[in-house]
């Protein structure tokens, strides 16, 4: 295990300490330690099944963990509905398969959270939603249904949907893995823009170009552990761990 970079505690927006998780007897996360500073962009990579998704899903309690502690934006993750909902309001998440609500229009997808969670008036929620649709460059699709949009458009809507909740942290779980190659760029462009605006981001992705461009740190996971972490240049040019080297050679050569 590499040493966690020390940073002054006050700035850390996510603090994960000695986190362990089991699925039955299967030890899926082993002693995860991770501190994320406000505004930091982190890319997580690693072989399939290494626990990347499980790790970031713990941060907004889509998964429970059995040992260790997790503090998100000053709120400790405990088994309490109010606590969990507070954290979820603060953390946006974008999924591999978009997970838009097919029975709602694009605009309704975007205003659902603001109206029912933040209790905003409809007109205000719609105005905000339209702003974010402009930002992801599809304001003309507002009245369509998700099924009428391309994959790339759907993923941009999903990003806008999260942003409408005004989160401090954004989690991305392989946001471009389900997309056709020609649509990957339009989604990555939106993510790069978001990173440049100073959003705290944790991205599980194998888009190494994106990692080099925006990441402050790249984390490599294998078999439920954080095996190596470094700033992108060092990580890609001078990997230390054998498993990292093997993984990088595989994804760069294919």
């Amino acid at each position, binding site marked *: 295990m590499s040493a966690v970079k020390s940073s002054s505690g006050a700035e850390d927006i996510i603090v994960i300490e000695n986190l362990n998780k089991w699925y039955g007897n299967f030890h899926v996360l082993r002693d995860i330690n991770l501190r994320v500073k406000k505004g930091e962009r982190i890319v997580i990579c690693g072989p399939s099944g290494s626990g990347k998704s499980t790790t970031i899903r713990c941060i*907004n*309690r*889509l998964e429970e963990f059995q040992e260790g502690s997790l503090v998100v934006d000053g709120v400790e993750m405990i088994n309490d*509905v109010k606590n969990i*909902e507070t954290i*979820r*309001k603060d*953390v*946006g*998440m974008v*999924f591999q*398969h978009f*997970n*838009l*609500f*097919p*029975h709602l229009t694009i605009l309704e997808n975007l205003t*659902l*959270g603001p*109206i*029912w*969670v*933040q*209790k*905003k*008036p*409809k*007109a*205000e929620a719609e105005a905000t939603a339209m702003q974010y649709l402009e930002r992801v460059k599809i304001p003309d699709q507002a009245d*369509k*249904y998700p*099924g*009428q949009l391309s994959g790339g458009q759907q993923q941009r809507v*999903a990003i806008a*949907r*999260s942003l409408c*909740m005004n989160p401090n942290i954004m*989690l991305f779980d392989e946001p471009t893995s389900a997309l056709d190659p020609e649509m990957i760029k339009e989604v990555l462009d939106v993510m790069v823009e978001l990173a440049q605006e100073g959003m705290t981001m944790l991205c599980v992705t194998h888009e190494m170009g994106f990692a080099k461009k925006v990441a402050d740190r790249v984390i490599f996971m294998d078999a439920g552990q954080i095996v190596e972490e470094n700033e992108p240049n060092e990580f890609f040019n001078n990997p230390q761990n054998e498993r990292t080297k093997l993984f990088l050679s595989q994804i760069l050569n294919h």
Partner: protein
Amino acid sequence: MLKQKTLEQTKAAARRNKGGRSAAFYNNPEIRALGYQLLLVLGLGYFFYSVISNVLANMEATGIKTGFGFLTASAGYDVLMSLIPFEATDTYGRIFIVGFLNTILVSVIGIFFATVLGFIFGVAHFSHNWLIRKVAVLYVEIFRNIPLLLQVFFWYFAVLATLPSARQSLSLGEAIFLNVRGLYVPKMVGSDLFWVAEVALAVAIAGIFVLRRWAKRRQALTGQIFPVFYTSIAMVIGLPVAALLLTGLPFTVEYPELRGFNYFGGITIIPELMALAIALSVYTGSFIAEAVRAGVQSIPQGQTEAARSLGLSEKRIMSLIIVPQAMRVIVPLLNSEYQSLVKNSTLAAAIGYPDLFNVFVGTALNQTGQAIETIFMTIVVYFIVNMVISFLMNRLNNAVALVSR
């Protein structure tokens, strides 16, 4: 068959037209198809005409009456249960109405309880509790796999017929009695000012719609969420109760009383109705439970996860995400289950519940011998009832349907 042929011929015609050669009219595929269909209709028409005229001729020859005159004739037999006043001297026409109302009664009761059971056991399938999950599976597997007629007999002969006699009735608070003759419950008899409470109930029900619109408007304007569901329940119960209290409780309660060997007064639910209603509810409920399960299972886990990541509560995820999507799958299945239930209610004949089929195609046909008229009238009723169900469920379906996928 016809359709396929038309298609092939259309293609053939297209090929021919490309060749630029005009064909004789009898080679035109569309005219041909029309010709075949015309022949089919004529053939069928002739078939039914000859059957019916043959039957009528035979009947006349053997001296059997035809026509609908019998409807105004006195039936001369009593029915076990009637929602409208009925005596043995009343007409076959009135028997028809009595049977129709009894069919509607058992169907409405059956549809209501089948839906309740179906949704409870369908949702129970997803419980975190092992025992509840197993009970749900057991319910579906048992009642879906036993013939309905057997289940009707089970409730009638094995359960209700083994209840104690009137004198040893099972009772609940000395107000509700259950014995081999049926279920006896108290009846509320309103006096002079009782209508005020009835009006209050109507106002409360109308008020729900007004409240919903008002709450929706207010939320759109201010963002505040109003507890519509709980307020509606409070209104429907509260307003009539308040009206009763204010008007000085203008009603009396008529309790069933044991006189001789039986209970009198109150409302009597005969075992035939109970057995049929229970069997239909439990049987159809097991199919509805499967429909509900399929509906909920059709929603990917990702929907819940996306909703959770927005910070929505589990209750809101249920009402805003899961139910609207699950209903798209459930409603069309409900439609066919409700229609089956109405058709299956004709099993009434097996235990003597006086439904339409039993009193009309059973007894009336037997006594008058007018098979064609009685069967025809009964067919029309079931047909219309199921059309009405279809119509209502299609409207519900349109309301929940996904605009585009």
